[in-house]
């Protein structure tokens, strides 16, 4: 009945409580445990504890994806800052479609959010196999079409 996922949700909630309160008093810890249990119970009744609501199975792969994403964010931050600060501000903005080969909703959302999170590109609308992207510089769309980010997110989400 109590799956590993449910239990891990409880652990995450309880850890959050402990770290946010920082007071090691038996009464307060007990109320934290009760509150976490209550939330888990309600989440269970709403049946939102699944691969989508609490994607714990992605944690380890996420650790390999995040450094690469961070680097992308740094690079594109510099590029966009340069555009904004250049006095003439020549823009080549526009939108285009980028193929997305993810099979799970979580993977697709991760891809779209990664696109949006890197400055210079924003996901406009998301469909199961393609994402409409607006870019400050059309080269950004070409780069996304080349598909490195797509491939990395695909590798991260694993099997559907």
């Amino acid at each position: 009945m109590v799956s590993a996922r449910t239990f891990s949700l409880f652990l995450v909630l309880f850890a959050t409580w402990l770290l946010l309160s920082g007071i090691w008093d038996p009464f307060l810890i007990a109320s934290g445990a009760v509150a976490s249990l209550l939330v888990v119970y309600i989440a269970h009744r709403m049946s939102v504890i699944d691969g989508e609501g609490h994607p714990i199975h992605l944690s380890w792969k996420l650790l390999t994806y995040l450094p690469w994403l961070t680097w992308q964010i740094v690079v594109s931050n510099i590029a966009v800052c340069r555009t904004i600060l250049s006095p003439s501000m020549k823009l080549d903005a526009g939108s285009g479609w980028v193929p997305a080969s993810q099979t799970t909703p979580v993977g697709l959302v991760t891809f779209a959010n990664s696109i949006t999170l890197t400055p210079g590109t924003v996901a406009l609308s998301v469909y199961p196999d393609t994402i409409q992207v607006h870019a400050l510089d059309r080269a950004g769309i070409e780069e996304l079409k080349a598909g490195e980010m797509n491939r990395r997110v695909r590798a991260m989400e694993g099997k559907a």
Partner: protein
Amino acid sequence: MERLHVIVLVILLIALAVTLVRLRSLLAIAILTGVYSLIMAVVYTLLDAVDVAFTEAVVGAGITLTLMLAAISLTTRRETKPGKRKGQRIVGAATAIVAGVALIYATTDMPGLGIQDAPIHRHVAPYYIETGPTETGVPNIVTASLASYRGFDTLGEVTVIFTAGISVMALLWRWGKDDR
């Protein structure tokens, strides 16, 4: 230095207030009111009133915008033009100016910010600060006073708000009709 931040923020507030008065689109006004309470929350924070800032952030920024949008969606999106009659304007301006001057005059009677021997710091406050944590077992002083020292009062308040909420729901909820 902190004072400088507060001054800049208060100037922002004044600019924002003037803009709000001049705007006619209720949608824009609702959004900008959210900004107003946001800046206000920062000012409260800088003035060390964390609990007030907390309420301001939660109510002002999170809930007010949503409620105002709900109200706009039920009524209209534009404010009607104010009356053109000169008398109306003068009365309005006079009321605002008199009220403002009265409020500013009242603040001159208040003790300065952070002065140690202000009346409020000498009456019962030291007692609560000293004995609150041990007497109630609650680490946060504000929570200790709200939930313990004046627990019945808070219970009453919660009851009133809860009852009001239920009544509003009972009046506005469209029971039975297209219930999908």
